Structures are given as structure tokens and as C-alpha cells.
């Protein structure tokens, strides 16, 4: 399993989206999020975006007030994950138009839906923005 979890956290440390690809109990999730967020948010711009935590490697990237954190296996390609995060942001940007924290808060299910199109079972399955957004757009039209 390449990707183990994806988190979106604002700079106050509040979780805005959490997607896990392995089962953790609520307590484990909360603990993990707390530790990782504390670790990553304490880092400065001049420091690299990779943090090792427990048996994960966490790769994070900051966009304005929002941190995107991806936990991966140890032999995943860090730079590729950074590109993946960027792709995710671009995709959301294309859908919401100038995506911001509020968009994700109020359309959490859509964000999840996009992620589900991109990643299944920890494997990246789709990297084409139009393909990712196709089902959501259909759904928007239908409703």
C-alpha cells in the first residue's frame, strides 16, 4: 500500500479532511493526527517537506492556510507525492474555482469523491484532471 492516509489541516491544526486507507480506530486516528500535525506545523519554510513519523513517511505541502499531508510507505517517491498533492489541489481548484478552506469544509463529500477517483486502496489510479472530475460534474448536473 503506497499511500496510507491523506490529511488536510488548517494552520490552527484543525483537521478539515481525513482519508485513511488502512483501518485505525477513532482514538488512533486522533492521536496520529495530533502528533503529525504538531510535528509538521512546527516546521518552517526553509525546512524540507518530509517528516518521518512512526513507520510512515509524511510528505506535506502548504497552500495558503491549508496543509496537505500525505502519509506513505517508506519506499514511496517523495517528489512524486508532492506532485500528487499539487495535482489534487489543481483538481479541486478547477472544480471549485479558487479553492479555499471553506470549499473543502462545506463540500467535504466532494473532496472525498475526488480523492476516491484518484486513489484506491492506497494506489494512485487516475492522474487526469478531467477524468477525476467527470463523475462529480455528472452528479452536479443531475441534482
Amino acid at each position: 500500500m503506497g499511500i496510507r492516509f491523506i490529511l488536510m489541516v488548517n494552520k490552527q491544526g484543525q483537521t478539515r479532511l481525513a482519508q485513511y486507507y488502512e483501518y485505525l480506530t477513532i482514538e488512533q486516528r486522533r492521536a496520529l493526527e495530533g502528533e503529525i500535525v504538531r510535528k509538521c506545523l512546527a516546521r518552517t519554510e526553509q525546512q524540507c517537506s518530509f517528516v518521518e513519523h512512526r513507520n510512515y513517511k509524511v510528505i506535506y505541502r502548504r497552500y495558503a492556510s491549508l496543509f496537505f499531508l500525505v502519509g506513505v510507505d517508506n519506499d514511496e517517491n517523495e517528489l512524486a507525492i508532492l506532485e500528487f498533492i499539487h495535482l489534487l489541489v489543481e483538481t479541486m481548484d478547477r472544480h471549485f474555482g479558487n479553492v479555499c478552506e471553506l470549499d473543502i469544509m462545506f463540500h467535504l463529500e466532494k473532496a472525498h469523491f475526488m480523492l476516491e477517483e484518484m486513489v484506491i486502496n492506497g494506489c494512485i489510479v487516475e492522474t487526469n484532471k478531467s477524468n477525476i472530475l467527470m463523475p462529480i460534474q455528472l452528479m452536479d448536473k443531475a441534482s
Partner: protein
Amino acid sequence: MAGSSIMESFFQRSLDDLIKGLRLQVTEYNFISKSLEEIKREIKSTDIQTKSIALEKLTYLNSIHSVDMIWASFHVVEVMSSTKFIHKKIGYLAASQSFNESTDVILLITNQLRKDLNSSNQFEAGLALECLAVIGNTDLARDLTPEIFTLLSSSKEFVRKKAVAVILRVFNKYPDAVRVSFKRLVENLESVNSDPTAAIGVFCELCSKDPRSYLPLAPEFYKILVDSKNNWVLIKVLKVFSKLAPLEPRLAKRIVDPIGEHMKRTSSKSLMFECIRTVVTCLTDYEVILKLAVEKIRDCFLSDNDDDPNLKYLGLQVLSILGSKQHLWAVVENKEFVIKSLSDLDPNIKFESLRLVMEMVSEGNVAEITHYLVGAALKSDPEFCNEILGSILMTCSRNVYKVIVDFDWYVSLLGDISRNPHCQKGEEIERQLVDICLRVAEVRPEIVRVARDLLIDPALLSNPYMHRILRAAVWVSGEHIELSRNPFELMEALLQPRTNLLPPLVRAVYIQSAFKVLVFCLYSYLGPKEVILTPVGDLAPEESAEASEQEASFSEGDEYFDPRMKRSGAGHTWDRNIDNGQASSSASLENDPFTHESIFNMLNMIKMALGPLSGSDEVEVQERAGNVLGLIDLMEQELPGLLVREGSLRGEEFQGVKVLDLLQNAFSKELGPVSLSAQQRVPVPEGLLLKENLSELETVCGDINLTPSSSFSLGSVLFVERHNSQQTEKESEPSSESTSLLSEHRKRHGLYYLSADKNGSGSNDYPPVNELSNAIDGAQDLLRLPGQSVDSKKKSTTKRRPVVVRLDDGEEAPVSGVQKPKDSKDDILSGAIRNILLGDETKHMSSQSNPSNTEKRNGKEVSLDTGHVPQSKDMGEIENPSTSISQHGNERRRRSKKKDGEESSHKEKQKSHRQGRSKTRQTAEIQSPVIPDFLL
């Protein structure tokens, strides 16, 4: 009913309302629990709209605010089975978020999932697949394999790629699914018009568990490596190759060129990084590409103008892979950058560069590098400082201090490190100080000097991290007090008032050392003035006193001198010390510092300091203080008498001198390192009946159990043991009478302890406790002293590496050679995959053959084979040796050299087999002859 549900849905809060509400709250807790109550009510509604909105809210609260939603599992199932997509979607999201493999309602959803997987609406199938990827357990995997199998070749890319990703989970949970669907998975990998992203991701995961099974697919992977334009796919395929290449040298050779091409062409850093990582992990034998990779590391990752910490970090990381693989030159080439990174802003980068710096350490530069690092440690924050110190200690002590030539330098370095205010490595320094002291005889004077400097500094006592180091220092100074320049000064240090800051166990060592110093001083003062070589060999302390008189004074223990001699030998330095004006309390004394007055002062000082401790709560402290005071008492009674007859002391007349003699002998006996396995190698002395012990024990145990008291004290056990050992010596057989009586008794009381007939089988080969001293002596014989330490000591005084005592084995902590047993699931999985990959070749074997093609290949094949060493055996071969040759596309050919005789008979098979193997991908194979037949 209908009315109420309309009302419900009319007044229901939507998810948006909930989120807005949450944002307005200062304390979310109350609002959440209120909303949760609402949700609990709403979710029971019969109206699916109301229910699904309630579930949606609950899911939100669960994922963002960690609210438990296990209780709603059944409602999740209800919403999942709604016919409307919009509800179904909410249900599925909730399921994949809150279910796990053991959620009980999973039993209920199998049919629902099957229905959705078969749905004509591809999005419904997609939902089901996504959900399955998260919650699929063994049952679901087994029951739904047929549906997933169908979807694997769906015409809709949308579901096909999801099915591919799900199959990974299915394989893990239900390995039998491999038989059915593996071929379709492979088809997904090689099909021309579909995106292989998902499939390659799956294979990448599969390969990480058991790469060997996937070697037959190498041509497919190779094709992707050459043809694909998608960086993500290329990265994944490179990962696959980095697993496969170490298993098959010809494959490694084959991929060198395409990887080089990618490195030259690509502008993507991620792909570049993956190429470099592949090269440094598995293609280091190919010089050209390795050079290229190192060059790219320098240009793309370690360049100053592009100050990206991410690239820096990764660049250092790949360098350290190279460093660990005997390609240190690459690290040395980038030395400046590495050293500069030690002061980077990012701790991660600092750690990486520290690791690299330590890689570069060698005999020649260890002093230079550690000097720089110790300086850097002083300047950095406590955490990194300790990291630096820790890695210095580790690197220098590695392999029994292999890099250290000048131990005097190293010991004083240890002293410097200890003084670093942030240093928390006390335990390791303690270990090394004692270890070096035991192993390297030559460095002892320097250790004693360093220890003295540490001990006389009262400031260090207040630092708890120092205590362990001080303990080692105290032990060393006590043990080698004869090397000390000034025992009185040391004694003062040992008894200084601030030692009450020490933990009791360390303090006990202080007192014990004080004891040794005291004995040494008294002995030097009172002991025999004539030079006598005291034989200190392998004799037990009790015996050696007698032996010293009876036996010849020239025994093996030549190197152990009377402390007096030692001291006068060291006297030069001492005198110089005094000349330099580094006056200490005894500086005014003349050549012999052991005057009546000084001894008397010392005794008084000890009494002052230790007197109160004889009432200490801590047993260790109290006991040792008691020892010291006891000796002083004894000596004070006799001292006046002794002093009168100064000059011609006859030790025998005075009890105290005898005691001193004994103690001094005991203390001056040298301790050496003992191999872990030493005890095993001690031969069992003749006449010692180890096997017999049990029966002896039995009779004795019976005796004990006869006593009415149900519990017996430790003392009685000890007594019994002693009794037992005596018995062993005296009577080799227990009297049969008593045994029979005992068994009678036991029968009556139903007491069975050790059944008599198990005597022999008990593998109690351990020597009894009183064998221990024997064992240690034996171990000393086993010490291997390379280069005859005794001789070489006298030879030269120039700087060279002193002898480091090394035990031939059992030295390092035993590396656990036991491999972690493989997960049985993995085994089943890879076994199944091997069967598929190799099995389907046999099926096709006879069907096709293309003579011209094979002819050509055969030629190639032989050339490939030359010089190839057969690799470890394959599972298939073990299982079925007779068919392995025809089954194994690659394995067979590898062995063809070995099995020359059989070669011809199998040639035909090979050809057809190979052809059959490529049946599934024959289009690719035939259309593009560019793709070399490198594995087949």
C-alpha cells in the same frame, strides 16, 4: 406517518447548517452532542432522505470531530441499499469510513455489493469497488471474486482501473482469487489502449512482498519502461525493477540503457530521483550509469544555487545509500556540501549529513572529523548535539574500536564529550571507558588521568547524566590506583561532600573505590619494602596468600608488580607534576608521599566522611562504608605497633598486615573481558556428575518437603544446596533405602516432584554455581591476545595502535540470523502467482511454435547463459523436480548449462514453451522486435 416524515425533513438541519452551526460555536462540545441527539432521532426515520442526511452529518462529525459512529452501522447498510445514487453514495462513504473487516454488519452487505458491482451504472459499480477496497475481508473477497473478475475486463475504463486496484486487496485476503484473475490483471498491464497506472501500482505492491514470482513478467515491465510517457507510471515501474534487478543480473544489464535515457531526457525531478535511486540501489555495478547518477545527484540535488531543502534532503539520502554500498567516493566528492549541511536549518537535513559524515570516517581522518563534530556539537541544540555525540561514540566503537589508533586521544576525547553540558550519553561513555580499560592495557594511565580530571571537578556531580560516567571513572581509578599520580588527592575527590548528590548505587562504587585506594595506600606504606613479585595468576584470592610464600616468586604473573614498584616507575611523572607547581595537598611531600602523617590524615578523613554512612538506608552504601570503617578500625589498633618497627616489618606478626596482604592481592588481580560463550567452552571437570545431580536433588527435595512448614526460607535452600554438593562428593549414590522410603512417603501424600526416570533426559548441562570461578579462569585462558601483547609492549614507544584485546567470538551481540518467518498469506499468494505465471506457460507449451524465431533465440540464449551462476532454487523445483525444467521459463534456461545432457531433449520444449509464454502478449513481442528477448 407521511406527514410526520415531511415535517421531519422540513425541519431537519442539513449538513451545511451543521457546519455553519459548528463554526459559530466557541465550545463545540455541547453543540456536537446536541446535534448527535438530533441525528440519532433522525436516522431512525423511515424517510430515506431524512435518514441519509442524518447519516451524512454523522459521517462528517465522525471524520472531522472524531465522533463515534459504530452504533449506526445498520443504518449505513440501509442507506447503502437505497436505489437512489445520491443516497447510496452517502451510505458508501459512511461505510468506507466507519467499517472495518470485523464489523458484523458486513455479513449483510455481500449481496448489496454484488448487485452494485453488476449494476449497469458504472458509477454504482465504482462506489462498490471503492468501498470494497477499504472494507474487503476474506469472506467478501471470496464471494465477490467472480464479479471483480468480470469487471477487470470491463469495456469502461472507469470501472476497470478501480477493479484493478481492488484486486490487490482481494489477493491479500483471498489468495485463491489469483488463479482466476491474475491473467486478466496482466492483460491490464499490457493492453495498448488503457492506462496502466492502476495495474503498475498493483504490481509494485505485489513485488515488494515477493519479487521473484514476478520475474517472468519482466518483458511487460520493460516495455512500459521504454514506452510510457507517464511519469507516475515510470516511477512505479522503476520501483518494480529495483526489486527485480537484484534477482536477475541479465535484467539489470538490460535496464541500464533505458534508465540512462530517462535520466538524460527527463525534466521531472521526481522521475530523475527515482532513476537515481534505482541506480544507487541496484545498478551500482554498472560504472557508466553510476557515474551519470552521481553527476545528476550533484547537479540536480546538491547544487547551491537552487536552495530547495527537499532536493537537498533527498540528495543526501541517496548519497548515504551509496556510502553504505562501498561507493564512498561519491560521498567524498560531495564532502563540502555534506559538511555545510551539518549546520542547515532543517534538523532532518542535519541528521542525514551527520550520517554521511560518519560514513566517511576512517583511521586517517577520525581525529579531524570528530574534532570538528565535537565543536559543532557544542554549538548546536541539545537534541542534535546528542545525536552527534551518539554517532561519534557509535562510529568509533564499531567493530571493537577499529578506527581508533591513538587510544590516548580517544580517551581524552571521551573526557571532553562528557563535559559537554548537553551530553546525555552517559551510559554509552561509561560502557566504553570500562571496556577500553579492560581491553587496552596501554591506555590505562591515560584513562586514570582523564578519570581523575572528571572526579576532582565538583561541578560535574550535580549533572545527573554525568553519574554513569563518574561511576566508570571511579571504578577505573580504584581498579588501577597504582597508576594514579596522587592517591590522596583521589581519595579527597572520592569523599567530597557533594557525592551525596549521587544515586546510592553510584555512591557505593565511590566507597568501594575509596576502599581500594585505602588498601593501596596502607599497603604501600606498611607492606613489605623489599621487591617481591607477587604471583597473581589464576589462583583464588584465599590461596594466593599462602602461595605467595610457598611457591616460587617467578610465576606466570610476571607483569604484575608489587604496587610499590609500579609507583616508583610512575614517579617521574609525578615529580614533574610537582615541579610544574601543580601543587596538591601532598605536593610538599618528598619522594615517598606515604608518611605517617599523610596516612593518619587520610584515615581521619575517611572516618569523617563515611562515619555517617554506616547508618545509611541504602544497603549497598551502608555495607561498603561498613567495610571501609572496619578495616580502619583494625588498622588503627595495630598501627602504633607497626610504626614503631618501621623499616623491618614482618607482616606475619600482625593480623592487620595479613588482611592487607590478602586485600591487596585480591584487588590487584587483573580483570579481563570475558567472551559470551566462554562458559560453554569450559570443559566439565572429571568426576563431576552433572547428570547425576537431578536424582540427588530429588532426594533432597523430598527431604525438604517432609518438613511440615509449607514455605521455606531462602536460607534453607542455600543450605540444602550446599548439603547437596557435599553429598555429591561424599557418596556418589544415595542409599537405596532412603529413596524407597521417600517414594513411599510421596505416594502416600500424592507428592510427585521430579519423576525419577526423567533424570537422564533433563539437559541440565550447566555447571553448578560453585563452578563459576573455574569458568572465569578458563575464560582467561581463552582470551586471544593477537600479536603477543606482553612482548610488544616493551618493544617500541612510538605511536602505534596498542593491542586491543579481542575475544574471537561471542564478541558482538549475536546478530539474529533468524529471519522473520514469512507471512503465510504472502506465501500462499506468491505461490499461487507463481503457479499462474509458470503454469499457464505449460498449458500453452505445446500449442505454438515458430521455428525460425526460436532458432535465432537459441543462439542468443547460449551466449546469455555463459558465465551465469545459477541462483537459489525456486519453489517450483522443490515441489516438482521432474517438471520444473519444462515449467520454468527462466529457471530452466539458467540451469541448462548444468544439465547439458538433458539440454537437447528439452530444446524442443523450450522453444514451444517460450512461444507459448508469449502468447498472451504476442502482438507486442512480434510487432516490436526492438524489445529484446532478454529473459526468455
